[in-house]
């Protein structure tokens, strides 16, 4: 236990604290951004709520992937379970968040326990694929749920009701819900931090590097790993319950394997086995997806303007033709991912200095 100022002694810590402060204060400075014409307050909150919720999901994956070496390729299934719990209960008139959220967490934990029990005997790519298999099975179950919209999904009439403590309609609902999601993120990060620095976490990290040795030392490694797996599932289910509230809509697409892939990308991009890595990953990946086309369009416009100034309008050509190139923004995204893998080992977190565990 070090003092409150300890994180500020390294660049890595300063960046982490800086990001969290930026996220925490968003509702207060977003009106300025709005006034400056940069981004509307509502949209900033909408985008960042989604970022924060997926950061929770990515952090839960980081617990098993980053610290435990368990690459689950079906982690989005718990987002689906959490989301469907909220959606289905609301559909049947049970709107209380005090019922919905605990149930979402419980069901996700139980499912993770079952999947873990069957999957954890396998290693490496076999583990990746068996977790994918179970996620796909549940995905197809959701597709078959005719009563809840099947693959068209289900619109959620109203958000979870926390006995009026959190406004669920009206102009304040966006700010309130953003702050709720952010507080949940902080709690999840706190929990992950406590876990990985406890005896349990040491053992879990031990199983990642050398399972046989941990067993020889007398640790019941299977039990450690399955408990971590279930906790990760539960936290991800919580993210799912939040996400359903945020989008007011659930559909099987929430648990499609590409969503699980996105979560892995966020964790690896941000930095595996680092507490804030998944948060960096979620922020970077989702903001790139959202704003890269616009950023490219902007750069192309500048280039075009520059070329026009230097060589004249004839040589620069039509701006529309230039802007059309921005449609191929996925080439830029793909290139960024490859460059991160090749030249920024340890992900984004690795850029800010060496990891000290946890």
């Amino acid at each position, binding site marked *: 236990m070090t003092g409150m100022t300890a994180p500020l002694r390294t660049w890595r810590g300063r960046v982490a604290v800086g990001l969290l402060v930026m996220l925490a204060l968003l509702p207060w400075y977003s009106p300025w951004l709005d006034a400056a014409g940069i981004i509307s307050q509502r949209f900033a909150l909408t985008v960042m709520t989604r970022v924060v919720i997926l950061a929770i999901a990515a952090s839960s994956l980081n617990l098993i*992937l980053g610290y435990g070496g368990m*690459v689950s390729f079906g982690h989005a299934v718990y987002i689906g379970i959490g989301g469907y719990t909220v959606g289905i209960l609301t559909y049947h008139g049970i709107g209380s968040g005090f019922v919905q959220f605990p149930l979402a967490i419980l069901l996700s934990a139980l499912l993770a326990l079952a999947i873990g029990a*069957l*999957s954890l*005997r*396998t*290693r*490496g*790519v*076999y583990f*990746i*694929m*068996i977790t*994918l*298999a*179970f996620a*796909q*099975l549940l995905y*197809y*179950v959701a*597709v*078959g749920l*005719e009563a809840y919209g099947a693959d068209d999904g289900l619109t959620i009439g109203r958000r979870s009701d926390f006995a009026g403590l959190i406004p669920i309609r009206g102009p304040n609902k966006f700010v309130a819900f953003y702050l709720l999601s952010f507080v949940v993120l902080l709690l999840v990060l706190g929990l992950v931090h406590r876990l990985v620095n406890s005896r349990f976490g040491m053992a879990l990290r031990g199983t990642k590097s050398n399972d046989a040795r941990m067993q020889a030392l007398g640790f019941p490694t299977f039990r450690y790993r399955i408990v971590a797996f279930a906790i990760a599932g539960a936290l991800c289910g919580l993210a799912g319950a939040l996400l359903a509230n945020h989008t007011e809509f659930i559909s099987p697409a929430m648990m499609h*394997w590409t969503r699980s*892939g996105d979560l*892995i*990308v966020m964790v*690896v*991009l941000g930095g*595996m086995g680092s507490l804030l890595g998944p948060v960096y990953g979620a922020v970077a990946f989702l903001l790139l997806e959202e704003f890269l086309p616009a950023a490219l369009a902007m750069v192309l416009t500048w280039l075009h303007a520059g070329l026009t100034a230097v060589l004249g309008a004839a040589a620069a050509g039509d701006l529309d033709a230039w802007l059309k190139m921005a449609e*191929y*923004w*996925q*080439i830029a*995204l*793909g*290139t*960024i*991912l*490859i460059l*991160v*893998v*090749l030249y920024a080992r340890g992900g984004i977190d690795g850029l800010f200095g060496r990891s000290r565990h946890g």
Partner: protein
Amino acid sequence: MTLLIEQLLNGIQLGLLMFLLAAGLTLVFGIMDLVNLAHGSLYMFGAYFCASFSAWTGSFVVGALLALPAALLLGVLVEVVVVRKLYRRDHLDHVLATFGLILIANDLVRLVWGPDGRRIPLPAWLSQPIRLTPDLPYPAYRFAVILVGAAVALLLYWLVGRTRTGMWIRAGASNRTMIGALGVNVEALFTLVFGLGAVLAALAGLMAAPIVTVSIGMGDNILILAFVIIVIGGIGSIKGAFIAAMVVGMIDTVGRAFLPDLLKSFLSVAAANTAAPAISSMMIYLLMAGVLVWRPTGLFGARS
């Protein structure tokens, strides 16, 4: 009875098509320990190359023959520029980097070929059904798929199991430093294997193209299926990939062919019609989960 035989042929054909795709993947994975998500993109490029070359030459067969060396070049290029730097990294780095390659490949195809798909017209002798018995016509092209698939299976068996190159490849798979010490150029060997994988992917893509038509992202969904197959078979095992592909092809076809009628015997027609496609989608995943619970390294994978 005729229907049963026909459906069995359909299953074999689908299985061999998937084997073509899975063979390259399991080869690259087993030997270089590389998770290559971009394998599906190479499959797509094979199909687009073939579409362009056959439109240019006016012949599907010539187009296909030209597409294979083009795919080899592309494979070697990708290996030298990106993939080569990944061998010493862990699987997750492979996943992230090759996911980046998928994004690039899909947009590149859209840039070059446009968003419209392509249909590759077959020559007349391939586009008609052959009559096996008077009341059992079977599409000639699907026979061609069966023949090519079987030929490639035998060729790979011979190449990996019976030749000197195959011996190096197997040695490289088990001990990289050792065969380096024996004077084999490991770097060139790996480039060769990746190129071979690309050719196999392209072959699968162009063989599938006249059936499934050519479109952007055509390799993305089928890639998961290919991974399912190599994992069921056991990574690195060509024999395993072959058996798993046949089983998956057969289960998929038989499921679609007979499951709805089977379900109708105890469910309502509407319920059976909805449940059947869902269950038949689930079946291969159930199979994979079952195999892995029973044998954690697949049917023919190396035991740890």
